């Protein structure tokens, strides 16, 4: 049922969307500290969901040739080649300082071997290669879903956000609404039946209805992508980050696991090893509909003013 947190704040989204006795909320926890960038998730997703080709173009951005999440790419593995000494983010400095140093004994992350002693220092990069499989966040407060004018986007009983291909009329509003730039209108290839409509990860809604794991999580070789109950995943994520911190990987941080954050927490959360924007994620995303009441108020005022203005225009004198 609709409640005080329907637009913002902690929420169990399925009951909010009218489900009675909904199953526990399902989601992903993507642990990038064990991602090997194999892209099995990208392929498994495409195979299951009949997602067509994205682009045949070498982008020169490390091994990322998929570019971004879009209508033809529901999983996207980011590759970041990073000399760790180089602080990746200007702000705040305290976080940049936590980058791994060679002095720590066991970071759990590789150090590129120390160079032979007679190689100059600048040829000894302290190197990291970060990889992360991005996906729709299945937000608690999903802007795409909220702005959808047809009801094509809906909240499933599993608390996920899914496009109904048979309903969407391709208005494109969801595309602009998503704070993560996930959902997109399919542009091609020509002849594809879903060209023109919005597409994104469904968390394999069809598979979930028969207790099967989403295709990407099923394929992921290293359990970087974990699927399960969101509550349990949040705990697992916290435990994992604690373990990594114990091991000296102070860069490890969680993303999307806070139900009080700008989107009410995500159904797909991440363990990252650098700031979110390094991976192409917004650092502090907010669902746009959080401000909707105020927008409505302001629009109401403007409309009233316009009505009044029109009336005043006619009041001054009659011909």
């Amino acid at each position, binding site marked *: 049922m609709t409640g005080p947190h329907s637009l913002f704040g*902690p929420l169990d989204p399925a009951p909010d969307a009218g489900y009675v006795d909904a199953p526990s909320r399902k989601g992903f926890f993507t642990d990038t500290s064990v991602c090997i960038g194999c892209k099995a998730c990208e392929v498994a997703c495409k195979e299951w969901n009949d997602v067509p080709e994205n682009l045949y173009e070498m982008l020169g951005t490390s091994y990322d040739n998929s570019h971004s999440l879009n209508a033809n790419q529901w999983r996207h593995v980011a590759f970041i080649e990073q000399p760790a000494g180089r602080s990746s983010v200007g702000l705040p400095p305290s976080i940049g300082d936590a980058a791994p140093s060679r002095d720590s004994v066991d970071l759990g992350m590789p150090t590129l071997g120390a160079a032979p002693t007679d190689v100059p220092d600048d040829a000894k990069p302290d190197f990291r290669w970060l990889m992360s499989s991005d996906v729709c966040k299945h937000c608690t407060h999903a*802007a795409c879903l909220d702005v959808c*004018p047809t009801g094509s986007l809906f909240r499933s009983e599993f608390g996920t956000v899914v496009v109904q291909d048979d309903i969407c*009329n391709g208005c494109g509003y969801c595309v*602009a*609404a998503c704070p993560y*730039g996930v959902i997109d209108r399919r542009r091609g290839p020509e002849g594809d039946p879903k060209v023109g*409509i919005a597409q994104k990860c469904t968390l394999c809604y069809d598979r979930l209805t028969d207790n099967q794991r989403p295709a990407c999580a099923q394929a992921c070789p290293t359990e970087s992508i974990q699927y399960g109950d969101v509550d349990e995943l949040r705990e697992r994520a916290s435990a994992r980050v604690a373990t990594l911190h114990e091991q000296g990987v102070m860069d490890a941080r969680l993303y999307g696991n806070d139900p*009080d954050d700008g989107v009410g927490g995500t159904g797909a959360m991440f363990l990252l090893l650098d700031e979110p924007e390094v991976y192409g994620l917004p650092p502090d995303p907010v669902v746009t509909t959080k401000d909707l009441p105020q927008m409505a108020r302001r629009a109401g005022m403007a409309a009233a003013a316009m*009505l009044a203005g029109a009336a005043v225009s006619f009041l001054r004198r009659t011909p």
Partner: protein
Amino acid sequence: MVPDAEFTSYYGRPIVKAAPWEHDIAYYLFTGGVAAGSSLLAAGADLTGRPGLRRVARLGSLGGLLSSIVFLVHDLGKPSRFLNMLRVAKLTSPMSVGTWILSIHGPFAALASMSELVGMLPARWQPAPVRLLLALGRPAGLAGALTAPPVAAYTAVLLADTATPAWHDAYEELPFVFCGSAAAASGGLGLIGAPLAESGPARAFAVGGALVELAAERRMERSMGISVETLHDGDAGRWMRMSLGLTAAGAVGAVVGRRSRVLSALSGAALMAGSFSTRMGVFEAGLASAKDPKYTVVPQRERLARGEPVRHEH
């Protein structure tokens, strides 16, 4: 100007996606505004006995509505599914709310306009049903006028209720900019089409709208944060500068040239062009702000740096 902020991104790729909309939507912002304002003017003219103004306003309303529908449908990925818009009524979706507003306003405004068109026919071509239509002209026009301001205002929320930085950042003032712009454009149309004797309210509406638009736009620019850059740069910047020039000139011209049919018409045209430029400028600025990750990352990063992340307070 906000100085260039340092920020990190993933190979400079955008974080949020720009709305996949063609210029159709910017045109619609304009035509919708014209339709809404005209509907108000038409009702006023009808009530105050200004048939010339009423005619041009009612025709403007109809023209605005019809072209709006064309633009809206054309921009859909699956135009054949246009009617799916009426499948649900979603309070959280400005597009859904707007659709419903249009669905209510549209028939009334169209009825009034049809009545106007029919009234232009020779009397012998006016059988009984048509006379009924003529009789319905006023009530329909009044209903249309009452539902018109939301048509003008909701489009601001339509843009603001997105993750597009320049649009969302403008949500406080954008409704005023758009309503003012709608008034200016529809008033401008009245100035073009109505006889000088009847155009006073249109002039007042237009000039008032222009002033509101200009003032609100200044306020908006001050409140937006760094995404305001996108209103100044590139195509959007050009449109916004044109908007300022045309709107100001139109307003001045409307006042100064109030005794000249030609000057009035020119001023009206300038106001309409100014309104169109505003819509184009705001539209383009939004797209530009979505394409540059700076406008997404920097404000959020600054929030975090201040220790003020967006969090729900218990």
